[in-house]
């Protein structure tokens, strides 16, 4: 197998406890990560319509060729399989996480892990280089994710944690990288995460519950091998090209935030330690995944909330709203930690961080519990929840928002106690159980526009993430476009400064970089007309292809890649599309172009689509929840718009999506993808040139090939 690869994939059947290998070269055309996972899932999951909890579900965990080498933000690890979180169908889905698991896996000699079957009792997998054992996990079952990892470290290293440890005839100072579930996963929660180190999580998809159903508590990997790269000189050179021209210079930044500790400003200049978002007023360091120059998370003097990111550190922030204040909806994408005063160092901040740790320890997906938390409070104000009420629940609502309340709330979900049993199903399924789903999706009280997943951004504003989601499987969580288009004006409005770049120049940069669909600025027009244009079909198609290959398969991190706008570069022009292929080719020697990668992404997107079609996908289902069409958004959201021949940033609040126009837009999108406009199914004439003739045959056999 070539440069950048370990060469083999570990295949585990937990039912008969067999361990075997797959030659990575067999799947080389898919490159790595997601592509590998989709192709292996296609081949090994015999019945793709089963539940995520079924032993026949196949879970893949795949590294990309860059993981463990030296390229900025390139160690994402991709988990795939049928995800129990999806609603009404548990779609074949994906989730990814960072940290150092993918590198350690490869140093141990494996490009990925495939898990089939179900163990008859709790197990954990111990991988030490070529030596793989299926171990008894009864002593770990019931532990949180931190204790589980610490216990496995102790077992594997004999507690020699900070010194050289012999592994065969080699030595390492590194702890095993452990991936594990907490109590939520053990209790088959559909909103359970799989955790690694302090705060790296595979969240959306519900894979924690899928692991629990397989009786799989943890996978520990430890390797003392290396990864050969094709051209180490070129690789170091490319890193230095990136460092000199595009990285935030911590000693002498070209572009610095206008306000001290203004963490949101990382959107502009990619400064370190910022993705906890709400500023942290405690001595700490930035902390990154292996090989990351941005280092988006932190480790604190208190040791609390270490490595936690983004919404896991910000949901607990709800605890500091004044008691009695009614919470208002804010999507995670809009959540501005903003400019909180440096006064809450010791009390409330620590309470927040403890809550973050509890959440990660149970292994619960923050997205769902955030929305459920606010939903509960509103129901409480409506007198619909409480002891003896329509939803019988004894949470101490008078203490809503406090650490004590949140601890009780999380525990109830982790162990499925009381209404926690409903919430563990995910909020949309819970609302269904309570008879509220239909009405609350009409009014928007339940902001779940698609497939059982909450809003990420407002689907009536920027639309890209939500369009990608409704055409896909889960919250797309793809920040390719919203970071520049929404982030730049948002940072300006929070800090009351001028945007660092005009809408016209920004759109100019973006539209030059979206190879091979470059040259159409209207791809980034967020006016009403822009939401339904043929140009927007290109935006979504480009985003899906890019994500499926460069991010999910190669392993580039969503926060660093693509890089359109870059405030550390003199002309604001980022390293996309040059950087992607330069790093990739230095590592693999494959010598592909950026556009070659986009084509592999298109192929992978079509393969995924075929799986969803087998699971029951039809054009008629790709419809948002009613409120998206009926209730205008009230939230302030600035985006570039093109009106009267001019580009400007405008607040797009006040609109709902037009259902008919969205339906027409779908036809434009299907046409661009070469899918049947009536059914949304891929056609033979699209699949065959992509080398997916076998997939077309299978769809035809099932009567699901597009005409």
């Amino acid at each position, binding site marked *: 197998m070539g440069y950048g690869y370990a060469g083999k994939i570990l295949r585990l059947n937990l039912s008969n406890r067999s361990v075997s290998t797959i030659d990575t070269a067999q799947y080389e055309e898919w490159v790595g990560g997601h592509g590998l996972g989709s192709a292996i899932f296609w081949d090994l999951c015999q019945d793709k319509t089963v539940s995520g909890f079924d032993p026949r579900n196949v879970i893949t965990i795949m590294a990309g060729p860059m993981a463990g*080498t030296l390229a900025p933000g390139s160690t994402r690890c991709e988990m795939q399989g049928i995800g129990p979180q999806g609603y009404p169908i548990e779609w074949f889905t994906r989730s990814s996480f960072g940290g150092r698991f993918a590198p350690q896996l490869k140093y141990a000699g494996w490009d990925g892990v495939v898990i089939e079957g179900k163990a008859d009792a709790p197990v954990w997998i111990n991988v030490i280089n070529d030596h793989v054992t299926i171990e008894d996990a009864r002593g770990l079952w019931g532990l949180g994710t931190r204790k589980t990892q610490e216990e496995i470290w102790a077992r594997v290293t004999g507690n020699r944690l900070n010194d050289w440890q012999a592994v065969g005839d080699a030595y390492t100072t590194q702890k095993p990288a452990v991936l594990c579930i907490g109590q939520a996963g053990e209790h088959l929660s559909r909103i359970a995460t799989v955790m690694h180190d302090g705060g790296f999580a595979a969240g959306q998809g519900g894979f924690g519950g899928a692991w629990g159903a397989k009786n799989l508590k943890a996978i520990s990997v430890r390797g003392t091998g290396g990864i050969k790269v094709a051209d180490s000189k070129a690789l170091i050179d490319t890193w230095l090209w990136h460092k000199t021209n595009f990285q935030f210079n911590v*000693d002498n930044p070209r572009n610095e935030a206008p306000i001290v500790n203004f963490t949101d400003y990382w959107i502009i200049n990619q400064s370190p330690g910022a993705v906890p978002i709400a500023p942290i007023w405690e001595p700490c360091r930035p902390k990154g995944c292996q090989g990351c120059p941005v280092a988006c998370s932190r480790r604190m003097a208190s040791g609390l909330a270490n490595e936690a990111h983004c919404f896991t550190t910000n949901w607990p922030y709800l605890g500091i709203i004044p008691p009695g204040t009614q919470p208002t909806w804010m999507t995670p994408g809009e959540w501005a930690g903003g400019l909180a005063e440096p006064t809450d160092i010791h009390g409330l901040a620590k309470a927040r961080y403890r809550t973050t740790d509890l959440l990660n320890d149970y292994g619960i997906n923050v997205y769902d519990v955030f929305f459920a938390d606010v939903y509960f409070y509103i129901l409480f104000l409506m007198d619909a929840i409480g002891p003896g009420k329509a939803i019988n629940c004894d949470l101490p609502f008078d203490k809503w928002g406090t650490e004590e309340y949140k601890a009780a709330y999380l525990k109830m979900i982790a162990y499925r106690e009381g209404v926690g049993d409903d919430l563990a199903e995910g909020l949309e399924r819970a609302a269904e159980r309570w008879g509220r789903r239909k009405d609350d999706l009409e009014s928007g009280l339940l902001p779940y526009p698609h497939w059982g997943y909450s809003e990420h951004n407002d689907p009536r504003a920027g639309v890209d993430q939500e369009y990608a989601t409704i055409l896909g499987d889960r919250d797309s969580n793809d920040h390719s476009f919203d970071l520049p288009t929404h982030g730049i004006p948002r940072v300006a409005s929070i800090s009351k400064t001028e945007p660092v770049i005009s809408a016209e120049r920004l759109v100019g940069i973006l539209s030059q970089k979206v190879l091979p669909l470059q040259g159409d600025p209207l791809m980034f027009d967020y006016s009403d007309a822009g939401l339904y244009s043929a140009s927007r079909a290109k935006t979504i198609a480009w985003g899906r292809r890019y994500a499926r290959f460069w991010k999910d398969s190669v392993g580039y991190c969503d926060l660093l890649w693509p890089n359109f706008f870059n405030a550390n570069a003199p002309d604001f022009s980022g390293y996309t599309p040059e950087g992607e292929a330069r790093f990739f080719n230095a590592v693999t020697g494959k010598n592909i172009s950026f556009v070659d990668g986009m084509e592999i992404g298109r192929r992978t997107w079509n393969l995924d689509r075929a799986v969803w079609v087998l699971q029951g996908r039809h054009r008629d289902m790709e419809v948002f929840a009613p409120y998206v069409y009926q209730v205008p958004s009230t939230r302030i959201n600035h985006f570039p718009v093109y009106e009267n021949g001019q580009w400007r940033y405008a607040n797009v609040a006040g609109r709902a999506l037009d259902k008919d126009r969205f339906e027409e837009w779908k036809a434009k999108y299907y046409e661009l993808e070469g899918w049947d406009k009536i059914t949304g199914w891929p056609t033979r004439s699209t699949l065959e040139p992509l080398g997916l003739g076998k997939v077309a045959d299978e769809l035809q056999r099932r009567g699901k090939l597009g005409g």
Partner: protein
Amino acid sequence: MAEVGTAEKRPFTAPLSEGYLVVDRKKCSGCMSCMLACSLVHEGKTDLSLSRIQIVQNPWGCFPEDIALAICRQCVNPKCVEACPTEALHVDAANGNTRTVDGSLCDGCQVCIDACPYKPSRMIWHHEKGVAVKCDLCGRAPHWIEKGGPKGKQACVEICPMRAIKLVKEAPEQEGDAGYEVNLRNEHWGWLGFPTD
């Protein structure tokens, strides 16, 4: 103090190295890029076990103790050189007096690994070649186009995105860690919300 009845042993001395790596423990982000770069320029592959710089960390540790940067100190009195029975470990006059292993002379006894007084030992066991290796300040890094050594560049210094590693020419204070663990942070670091003291 020498024991009664034994001859007092004179400290082993060697010509001073012309360069020393110093690090800022509070500035490091634990990204391990330095380890990847080190093994890349010396071995042509990324391999944490063969990196001459070791970053040891605990995800749940308390800042700043959550990270230790284990760099070779190019000691004034290098115990590793002193201990080596074959003279494989030597002071490399052609490379600014860095303490260096001549692999062709190393018989793999690993005495130097135990002799280095720091934990984890800064002497690295090359399990594939069966010899000891160590930091040479990139003076002999075959997989890099740059000239290394005390007068050249070091891959870890060049790569580090936090600019947390630096080469100095004067021998740092040898007693304790203060000479090698320095403050490389300025007001821009503070502006990000991180401590500068």
